[in-house]
Every structure is written in structure tokens, then in C-alpha cells.
């Protein structure tokens, strides 16, 4: 059995409760970090672990923490990104519902390391039940003295506050998240300045994904070297792959970085549902360019996917079968981004809604020959021309679908394609 970092105890009954968690080495990492280590040592260890951000962009966590200026008098904040809006992604939900104390431990250690006394968990509004479970776990942690004033007699204080979103994918983008937390519309900010120096309430702010932070306790307990060895030299540890779509066993699978996509689909997720054949795979959440069935021997790590002109993103794998018309996939993608564009920049606002209109027309059987080229042209005119990465996140998968399935798409606008099954 492969070694795990986050999910190894998910099967234990009531593991989300403090007493059970404590029986299985719970809060040992916090004790070690706060009592036996200096903040600089923790940061070094996390840097050495090559822990790359699990939210999408894959930025090394330790390096990000290092950008926070330590010589300013302002308070510093941690924002844990639990917005989980990337279509296909559900891993953070599992972490928070099955292992909330691991996340809390990670938050305590991160805050101690960076000198933070207030942490916010920004959780998507739909996860109401999960937010309640987190509240429960947080109050248990206060009771045990792991949160609040003078934690474990170290002089370190920390409060954790849960902040629920209200239905907006863009609020997962880190600067939109900050705006939303401040009580405004989730409109992304121009960078620089980066949140590390000017973030929440204009103060230095660290923003990390739930899974990123949940890796910290194991790095503290078992060391950076152990963590690196689990994964790849430049990409340490495991990923929690969320597999959905036309597979026999959809669900989460925590596996070493670098596991092949083929193994994940066929060995772990049980392969295709009976009678279904593989057509394409979205390898890292909807924003990731699509892969065709013959491209799945790829290794699942940040660099391998970039080399294949896609991305690991949130490690959400959506498996598409041959009975699903590619126009349906394009429709879901186009509808999503036109709905979620915040509207601040013209190429993104107009481009996504225009593409969506064209795709709808094609679905209704009223497509024209030039539509396919127009979709491609519009996507090209979004790419690289917007304020935040949502524009690219829309353009890239759309271009890849058009590029890789042009023939099938053309069959919908040439009158040849009336039968939905390809």
C-alpha cells in the first residue's frame, strides 16, 4: 500500500472528533513545531519539502511564506482557500469533513511560522454542513488550548474564523477572495502588489489551499526528506486526485505525485463503467486543457502536465466516454465560464458570453460553418489579455477542445451530425 499524508485515517470512525484524533497522534505536530522548533526552521523544512500549492497554480508554499515581510507593524493574516469551485473538484470537502483537525493543525503551524494571529477559512457557501463540522472542530481545539491565547504556553495567540462564501467561482481566485472577505463583490485585484505584502485589510497575507495546509503537519513530524521521497524531487508528496465521470469507482485517491493518469483511471478508479469506452480526460479541473484517450500514459505532476500543454490544477480528473458528444463537453465549459466571469475585463466578459451563445446555437442545430473558427478566434482573444487568470482558464480548455476534436465539432455544423452518439 502506498504511503499517505492526509487520508490514511479517513476510515476511522469519528476521526473528525478531537478525542479520536488525539488517540492517533493528533496535535503531535503542533506540539513539536511550537515547542521544539523555531519559525525559521519550520519555513526551511517546508521549503525543502518542495510542497507546491494544491489550489491550482502549484507555487511552492515555503517560498510564498518567505515573501511575507516580517518588519512591518501591521497584523498579518492567513486565508485558507476552501472555496473549491473548480468543476470536478471535491477533495477539500473530504479533508474538511473527515479530517478537520489536520487542517487546524496545519493552520496553527503555518501561523506560528509566519507570525500570524488571525486566520480565516473562506469556505464555499454550499458547504454549510462542512462549515458546521469545522466550527465544531475549532471549538474543540479552543477547549484543549490549541487555539486562543498563549497556545501551549508558547506566548503564541491564534484565532480561526470561518467565513462562508455565497456562490461565486471567482472568489476562489486569491485576490477576489480577499475582496469578498472584506464584504465586497469578488472582483479580482490587479497584481502587484501581491497579497504577501498588501492583502486582507491591506495587511500582509498568506493564502493557501486546504490541501496545501493539510500537508504541513506530516512534514513537521516526518521531515522534508521523507515528504520529498513520496513524490518527485521538485514536487514533493502526494496529491488527492478526485475522479469523476464515466468510471466504475468515482472518488478521491491519494497517490504519489507522478502516478500515471492511466493507473489512476484503470487501477484505482476501477476503469470505465460497463460498456463504456474512453474518449477524453480533463486532468486538473475544468480549467485544464483536455487530453485525448491516447494521451493518458502521462505522469500526473505539475511539470509533466505543463509539458503536455495542460495543467495539474486542482488534480480533479473528469473521465469522458465516447457516448458523450464533444459538443456537450464544450457546452458545459462555455456555460460555466460565461456564468462565472466577474465582468471586469472586456475580453473575458464579452468573449465567454459570445462563445457560449455560439455553442448554444450549435447545440440547437443552427450552427454555421464559420462558428468553429470563431470560437477559436474568440478564445485566442481572451488568452493573456485579462486581469486575472479566469480568462485564460476559460480560453485554454475551449481552445484544446476545438483543437483536438475539430472534426467532430465540424460535423455538428455541416448538417452531417444529427445522431447525438458518435
Amino acid at each position: 500500500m502506498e504511503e499517505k499524508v492526509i487520508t490514511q485515517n479517513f476510515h476511522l470512525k469519528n476521526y473528525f472528533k478531537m478525542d479520536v484524533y488525539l488517540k492517533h497522534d493528533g496535535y503531535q505536530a503542533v506540539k513539536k513545531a511550537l515547542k521544539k522548533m523555531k519559525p525559521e526552521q519550520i519555513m526551511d523544512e517546508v521549503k525543502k519539502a518542495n510542497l507546491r500549492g494544491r489550489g491550482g497554480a502549484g507555487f511552492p508554499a515555503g517560498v510564498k511564506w518567505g515573501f511575507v515581510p516580517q518588519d512591518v507593524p501591521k497584523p498579518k493574516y492567513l486565508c485558507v482557500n476552501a472555496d473549491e469551485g473548480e468543476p470536478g473538484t471535491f477533495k477539500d470537502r473530504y479533508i474538511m469533513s473527515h479530517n478537520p483537525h489536520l487542517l487546524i493543525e496545519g493552520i496553527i503551524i503555518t501561523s506560528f511560522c509566519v507570525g500570524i494571529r488571525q486566520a480565516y477559512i473562506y469556505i464555499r457557501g454550499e458547504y454549510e454542513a462542512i462549515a458546521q463540522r469545522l466550527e465544531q472542530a475549532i471549538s474543540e481545539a479552543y477547549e484543549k488550548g490549541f487555539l486562543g491565547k498563549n497556545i501551549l504556553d508558547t506566548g503564541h495567540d491564534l484565532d480561526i474564523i470561518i467565513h462562508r462564501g455565497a456562490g461565486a467561482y471567482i472568489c476562489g481566485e486569491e485576490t477576489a477572495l480577499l475582496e469578498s472577505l472584506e464584504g465586497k463583490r469578488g472582483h479580482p485585484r490587479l497584481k502587484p502588489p501581491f497579497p504577501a505584502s498588501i492583502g486582507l485589510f491591506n495587511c500582509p497575507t498568506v493564502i493557501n489551499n486546504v490541501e496545501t495546509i493539510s500537508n504541513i503537519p506530516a512534514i513537521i513530524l516526518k521531515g522534508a526528506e521523507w515528504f520529498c521521497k513520496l513524490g518527485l524531487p521538485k514536487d514533493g508528496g502526494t496529491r488527492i486526485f478526485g475522479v469523476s465521470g464515466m468510471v466504475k469507482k468515482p472518488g478521491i485517491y491519494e497517490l504519489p505525485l507522478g502516478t500515471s493518469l492511466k493507473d489512476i483511471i484503470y487501477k484505482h478508479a476501477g476503469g470505465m463503467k460497463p460498456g463504456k469506452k474512453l474518449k477524453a480526460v480533463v486532468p486538473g479541473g475544468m480549467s485544464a486543457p483536455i487530453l485525448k484517450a491516447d494521451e493518458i500514459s502521462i505522469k500526473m505532476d505539475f511539470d509533466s502536465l505543463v509539458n503536455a500543454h495542460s495543467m495539474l490544477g486542482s488534480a480533479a480528473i473528469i473521465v469522458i466516454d465516447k457516448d458523450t458528444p464533444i459538443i456537450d463537453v464544450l457546452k458545459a465549459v462555455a456555460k460555466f465560464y460565461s456564468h462565472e466571469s466577474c465582468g471586469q475585463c472586456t475580453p473575458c466578459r464579452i468573449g465567454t458570453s459570445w462563445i457560449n451563445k455560439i455553442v448554444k446555437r450549435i447545440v440547437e442545430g443552427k450552427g454555421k460553418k464559420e462558428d468553429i473558427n470563431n470560437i477559436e478566434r474568440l478564445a485566442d482573444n481572451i488568452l493573456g489579455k485579462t486581469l486575472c487568470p479566469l480568462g485564460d482558464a476559460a480560453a485554454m480548455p475551449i481552445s484544446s477542445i476545438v483543437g483536438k476534436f475539430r472534426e467532430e465539432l465540424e460535423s455538428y455544423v455541416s448538417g452531417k451530425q444529427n445522431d447525438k452518439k458518435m
Partner: protein
Amino acid sequence: MSPEFSDQAKKKIREVISRYPKKEAALLPLLHIAQQEFGHISTESEKVLAEMLEIKPIRVREAVTFYTMLNRRPIGKYHIQVCSNLSCSILGAETLIDYLKKKIKIEIGETTPDGKFTLSTVECLGNCEEAPCMQVNFDYNGNLDKKKIDSILNSLK
């Protein structure tokens, strides 16, 4: 008429506002509380919240019109929100949406005349391993088929 929060909600509001270094940051949590109390966010509620947070009512309106979970109009007792994103649509969400429309005899975005159901489609609910799925108010229902939808609808009184 200005909406009157319950004592419990008032207490919660005071506590929530104290969590933030700036009052206005409590806007989203307060909107959640208001929606829970009154079912939707009326213009009057917007004014009350603006006063509590010492901001202009237009700032509240800006937020209410931005976030899709916030309703500006009354909705049904049960808000049925069916996911129409990719993993769910691969597994037949569209057929189920059509089935629901016929069954409760309304279109997407409408509320039944008796005020019992509102039907919406939503983007990915983060529950794709149980696709196709829907949320009824805050309850998740996954691995849906027509039979399961029937039994869920029957259980909603």
C-alpha cells in the same frame, strides 16, 4: 415595514461583527443570517444591514446581486438546485432536469404556485463523485435517478 431579526439572530449578528477588524467584512455572514431568517434579501433588509455595518445600502445591493446564493425575491420552501456542470451532465443531468420540470410542472428559475418548490440549475456543487446530484436547500442528494428523485420529492412535506 422593516424586518425584525429574532433575538437569537441579533445575538449572532453582534458576535459575527466582533470577529472582523472592519465591520463591513461581516456583510456576507450577515446576509446569510438575513436569508435564513426571512428566506430572501429584501430592499428593507438591505437597508437594515447597511445601517448595522455603517455602509451605504448600495454596497449591500452590490453584494446581493453578485452572489448567486443570495435571493432578492421570495423562493419556495424547498430550493431544488440541480448541478448541470460537466461530471453531472456526462451522467445524465439533463434528462433529470427535464424529468423534474415535468414532475413539478415549472421551468428553471420558477416557483410552484403553492410556494413549495423553486427549481434552479447550478454550477458544480463539489459533489461530482456522486454525480448526478442536486442540493435541496443545503442538503446534498447524489447518485440521482428518476426513482430517487421521486422518493426525495415524496419525502418533502
